């Protein structure tokens, strides 16, 4: 654990990419093979199953530190991280013991077979022999959510440096349904056997946001294909060995959540992999995102939901065909293969090819983009006709040109202190619009301002607090912010009767007096138009 904690410290102590990659590459070159594999697993989001509830951990930690539980609970939101809070409040270790990362993970996993009293004893014993950083790491292993400030991309780069295997190959090998129990460093990374994991997806290619309009792109419009950007769940459908798998972009296996997609396998041959968007669909049009939302987070689907919110795969790329990896082909050829394959599928089966948006020049495409909201689309996707299917977020070939967000000017009425990175600033605000002479709260937002602006508003909040409700303060209704959001829907749970999607602060409208903020009627009009 010492070596792993040292790696964690090295990664945590720098904000620069090169030293991070170097620290990881050193670790991959030196650490025992089991620890290496677990590190790859952790940094690609695979973690040991939780064997102790966080409620128990809090109780045990507070008791060990001799503090009342309420005091622990007050500290946690200020620190912003449970594992860190526990590591900080515990008394210093009484003695030290160095066991490998794999051994500690084994210890954590073994807890599930023990009665609660023994679990407590084991955890306290572990805390007693670990220093502060090791405790933090240990707690992170128990509570999950291990981030370490390293993306999978950086980890892959470091692993590539340590093993001399090219990055794209590694990115592919690290995909899919594996855990340190089912593979070894050797079989996963050094000498993989493709037949072992039929479900293994390809790394998703992710588009960059187009900020400056398509005129800023390379080459003439004819070099680019345009599609609509749909507001669904990105998915990769894999047909291999007579069965099928559906992966989310977050590498979650979603096969059982969308059982209707099984029908696609009746018409397409094994050795086919499609990339597309899972959409709730009725009468040849997508349903609003909240229809699909009901299907997310359900492991199995009741019959009624299958008829209320049936889904299709809106395919836009073909990555494997006849068992061959086709990603190196230019998009124009992959698209032709995709269309030919989809032609074999009857129209009532849940597969469509996302149509192209024809256009002659950029102004014509801009006009198409302007129609997005009416078509329940989020904007336009631009893909270079001659580009391969790359992995991860790479600039140049795929762009998302999103429709401008909806905006409303609102008055800040409540403020709450942030946590973690922004523990000593006021960052979480509640906003209201006018209903006659009343201010009606309708949304919270906590992002979009610069650190300098957060500092200014924090100083202002301190001086203009009207009342305190625990951590929340009501403030003078004085400052107006432009709130940007992606969508609006009716909501019975909110006082205002509506809820926003992805609200954030777009601008601090210092030029606007509070009286000139928008009204509830304005929001209701937006709800009628776009809800």
């Amino acid at each position, binding site marked *: 654990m010492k070596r792993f904690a040292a790696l964690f410290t090295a990664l*945590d*102590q*720098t*904000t*620069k990419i090169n030293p991070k990659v170097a620290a990881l590459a050193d670790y991959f070159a030196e650490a025992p093979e089991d620890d290496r594999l677990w590190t790859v697993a952790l940094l690609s989001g695979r973690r040991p199953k939780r064997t102790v509830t966080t409620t128990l951990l809090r109780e045990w930690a507070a008791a060990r*530190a001799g*503090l*009342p539980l*309420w*005091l622990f609970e*007050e*500290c946690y939101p*200020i*620190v*912003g*991280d449970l594992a*860190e*809070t526990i590591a*900080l*409040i515990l008394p210093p270790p009484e003695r030290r013991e160095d066991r490998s990362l794999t051994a500690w993970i084994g210890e954590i996993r073994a807890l599930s077979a023990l009665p609660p009293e023994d679990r407590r004893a084991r955890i306290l014993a572990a805390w007693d022999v670990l220093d502060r950083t090791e405790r933090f790491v240990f707690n992170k292993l128990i509570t999950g959510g291990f981030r370490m*400030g390293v993306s999978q991309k950086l980890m892959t780069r470091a692993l590539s440096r340590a093993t001399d295997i090219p990055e794209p190959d590694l990115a592919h090998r690290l995909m899919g349904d594996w855990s340190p129990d089912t593979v070894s460093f050797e079989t996963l990374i050094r000498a993989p056997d493709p037949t072992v994991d039929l479900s293994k997806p390809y790394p998703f290619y992710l588009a960059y946001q187009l900020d400056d309009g398509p005129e800023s792109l390379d080459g003439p419009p004819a070099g680019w294909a345009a599609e609509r950007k749909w507001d669904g769940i990105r998915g990769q459908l894999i047909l291999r060995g007579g069965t099928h798998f559906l992966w989310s972009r977050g590498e979650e296996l979603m096969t059982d959540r969308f059982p209707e997609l099984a029908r696609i396998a009746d018409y397409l041959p094994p050795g086919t992999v499609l990339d597309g968007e899972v959409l709730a669909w009725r009468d040849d049009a997508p349903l609003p995102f909240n229809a699909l939302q009901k299907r997310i987070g359900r492991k199995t689907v009741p019959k009624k939901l299958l008829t209320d919110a049936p889904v299709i795969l809106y395919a836009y790329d073909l990555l494997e065909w006849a068992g061959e990896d086709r990603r190196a082909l230019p998009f124009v050829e992959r698209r032709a293969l995709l269309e030919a394959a989809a032609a074999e599928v009857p129209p009532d089966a849940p597969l469509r090819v996302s149509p192209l948006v024809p256009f002659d020049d950029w102004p014509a495409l801009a006009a198409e983009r302007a129609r997005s909201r009416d078509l329940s689309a989020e904007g336009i996707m631009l893909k270079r006709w001659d580009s391969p299917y790359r992995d991860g977020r790479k600039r140049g070939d795929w762009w998302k040109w999103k429709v401008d967000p909806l905006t409303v000017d609102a008055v800040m009425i409540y403020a709450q202190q942030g*946590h*973690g*990175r*922004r*523990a*000593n*600033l006021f960052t979480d605000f509640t906003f209201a619009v006018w209903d006659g002479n009343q201010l009606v709260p309708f949304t919270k937002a906590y992002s979009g301002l610069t*650190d*300098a602006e957060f*500092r*200014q508003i*924090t*100083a202002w909040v301190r001086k203009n607090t009207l009342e305190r409700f625990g951590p929340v303060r009501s403030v003078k209704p004085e400052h107006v912010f432009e709130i940007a959001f992606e969508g609006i829907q009716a909501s019975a749970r909110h006082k205002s009767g509506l809820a926003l999607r992805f609200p954030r602060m777009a601008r601090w409208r210092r030029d606007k007096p509070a009286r000139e903020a928008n009204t509830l009627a304005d929001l209701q009009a937006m709800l009628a138009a776009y809800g």
Partner: protein
Amino acid sequence: MAEPLLTFTDRGIYCPDGDFHIDPWRPVDRALITHGHADHARDGMGRYLATEGAAPVMRHRLGDIRLDTVRYGETRTVGGVEVSFHPAGHVPGSAQIRVARRGEVWVVSGDYKVEADGLSTPFEPVRCHAFVTECTFGLPVFAWRPQADVAAEIDAWWRGNAAAGRASILGAYALGKAQRLLAAVDCGIGPILTHGAVENTNAVLRAQGLMLPDTVRVTPETDTKAHPGALVVAPPSALGTPWARRFAGPGGAPSTGFASGWMALRGVRRRRGADRGFVLSDHADWAGLNAAIAETGAERIFVTHGYTAIFRRWLAELGYDAAVVETAYEGESLDADADESDQGGQNAPSPREDLEKGL
């Protein structure tokens, strides 16, 4: 019935019997000042009373003020009330102010820390009936390590950077923290350069007899290449500005570090975006606050700034008669300093401006 010995007004802490304020934030006739930081020693008071050790910095900051000084432990009578100043260990010259009337004793802590920092006169507990205390770091997650350990960490960082041909820029408040660090690091590792704001305070403190290692003031003319492997001590607001980028050496961009109690929180450390965070504060940690309060023997505790609501509840559960007092004191701010002085440029902020920010 007599009024309480101290009351809390919208101008500051007030003693009706003695007709004086302690660390007032609005103009009053007579002000007793705990220490020279800008949230405690402000402009515009008719008369000031402070320790001999705090006076030079106050004069430097506030200019031509009517300032009377006392030694630690010396008793004065102000309007029939006994007052005396006792070491708070926060920064050189900082004091707790003891106020007594007919055997009733109140103490106002100002800002304090209980660990000796090698530069300030160490904190001394003062017995009292009522204690007015700060609690900037009044949460059990704050537990400082000994200064020597932190200094060793800074030395190792500096040494590593020097070996790699990089400068080390350390952000620390211009009054107190900066000098404490200068006195604590191993000045054999390399040259020490200082931002103008730090050096101006150094000059004031050296003139009153404090021993600091040799430092070189950075001016627009300074050839930064002429001091390879230097430690550069600057106010936090100078980090990340063109001023700091001047120190790029053969090993690339300078490494940046911050010394503050807030660096105990990983989230804050990451937000500040420095390469390294060193956990070092001029305020008491959780254990320090609790020990200091216990040693006063006081039954009544007033908490002035920091995590006041939480700390008050903790004290109440321990059996103290504890209350929160709203004040304008700001504790150890990581952010307030940066607002006005992010001016980049080659010009150092004026010392006065910077001291005001360097709480």
